[in-house]
């Protein structure tokens, strides 16, 4: 695997023109602090959209607003317009569980449950689809395959604890766990920042292959990673969306000074 050059694993990702996430004037507050200052941004179906920007710029806040993971933070408020798959996730009467079934999430640090690999993955499909027995076995195997983990764990995945896996395997287990509920949109919050380069390469390959059938939105601090895996890139700074464009364009020909300074490594 070659990590220094962008072209190694990024094929011509098949994106569409169909908008799946659309934000208009989206503002987020934590208490008095305005974390997102009116974001206008659309994400098209399929492909990978990378969110980049310096720490505290709002990219993670934007990501976590999409599946309402910020709801648990005291003082969190959101205004403006957000539409995901035709629905406003903050509208009254929205089924939060259904939103999170449609919009899956992978976190910065692998967080498998202290249970067997099988149980880690079975939790979601059991809760959402009520399946049991051999049907559930099948879903677990498919999810492990989709996360490129099956070959490494197939002998003892029903007994072995998810915590006994290596960091990279744990992250793929978390991806399998998320895939097992079959989301349409996959949110990833710096999924490789705790991993070594080889594990990172495997996850990146996985991200690209997932993006053939799912819409992936990834927050990353690693500009090379954004270049390698994403079809579109959005640059955030101070809670604002500075610039969004197809990845090659944004890196080769940034329109704004701040974007140019950031992607050329002058700050960050």
């Amino acid at each position, binding site marked *: 695997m070659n990590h220094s050059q962008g072209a190694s694993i990024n094929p011509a990702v098949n994106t569409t023109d169909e908008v799946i996430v659309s934000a208009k004037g989206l503002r987020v507050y934590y208490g008095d602090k305005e974390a997102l200052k009116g974001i206008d941004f659309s994400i098209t179906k399929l492909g990978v959209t990378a969110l980049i920007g310096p720490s505290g710029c709002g990219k993670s806040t934007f990501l976590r607003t999409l*599946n309402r*993971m910020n709801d*648990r933070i005291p003082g969190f408020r959101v205004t403006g317009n957000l539409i995901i798959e035709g629905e406003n996730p903050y509208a009254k009467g929205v089924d*939060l*569980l*259904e*939103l*999170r*079934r449609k919009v*899956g*999430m992978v*976190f910065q*640090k692998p*967080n*498998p*449950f*202290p249970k067997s690999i099988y149980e880690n993955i079975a*939790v*979601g499909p059991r*809760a*959402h689809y009520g399946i049991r027995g051999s049907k559930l076995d099948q879903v677990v195997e498919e999810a492990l395959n989709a996360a490129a983990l099956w070959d490494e764990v197939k002998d003892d995945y029903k007994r072995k604890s998810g915590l006994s896996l290596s960091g990279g395997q744990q992250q793929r287990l*978390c991806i399998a*766990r*998320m895939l097992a*509920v079959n989301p349409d949109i996959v949110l990833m919050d710096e999924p490789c920042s705790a991993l070594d380069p080889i594990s990172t390469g495997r996850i990146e390959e996985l991200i690209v292959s997932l993006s053939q059938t799912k819409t992936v939105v990834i927050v990353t601090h690693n500009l090379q990673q954004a270049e390698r895996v994403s079809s579109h890139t959005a640059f955030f700074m101070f809670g604002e969306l500075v610039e969004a464009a197809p990845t090659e364009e944004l890196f080769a020909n940034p329109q704004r000074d701040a974007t140019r300074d950031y992607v050329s490594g002058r700050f960050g």
Partner: protein
Amino acid sequence: MDALTSLGNHNELLTKRDSKRSLWSGVGVAAIGLVTLFVIAIILFLIGTIILRGAPSVNLGFLSQPPLENMTAGGIWPQIRGTLLLIGGTFLIALPIGILGGIFLAEYAGSSRLIGLVRGLITSLAGTPSIIYALFGLAVFVLILKLNISVIAGWLTLATMALPVIVLSTEQALKAVPNSQIEAGYALGMTRWQVMSKVALPQAMPGIITGIILASGRAAGEAPPIIITAGIYFRTEKEMGFLELIRGATESLPLHITEGLR
């Protein structure tokens, strides 16, 4: 190398430093070793004394028969039975309430001023001396509710005493579950209760069990509440139904030992 000439020949300083360090390290290890030996010696002395002096008296008859000849012979079965009965009933009452209370405080209560006050009160109740619970049980359960000195009054008194410990340890064990685990549950589309029962509670279980053990030690071992609300030194009835058993006072180990020492 030349920049720090004021340090002079620093190899000499390093040698001095190292000999100082190894001296203190040796002293430290020796001190820790001595203290450890002392603690082991005390434990061996305690266990040894109990076994050497107690073992000849303990046999199946001692554990399975009632006391005889004005408490100077026979066994201690009624006292064991009474103590087990008291603990069993106490936990039947205190466990569900205590664990649900802990879950409520940890996950549902939020952080209002009222909840802060409640939490403070529970904490001070957990540290309240058992004699206070004994007097409370006597006033409320024995006299006002007219339960008399009985196993039921003992259960309620001991449950009141065990509750705060169980509530607090459950709450703390739940709060110690990493946020990343909780978020993983929510991100999979679990309900609040599913996150609680499938993610948080299993991981908090060791801490909760520690709390239960602490509470049971307190409930079974504290003599005052048992003596005042449920205790009787001996009785003459031989066979009783369960209802009669719990409506009346019971023999118990703390009271038996206290009386026996007079």
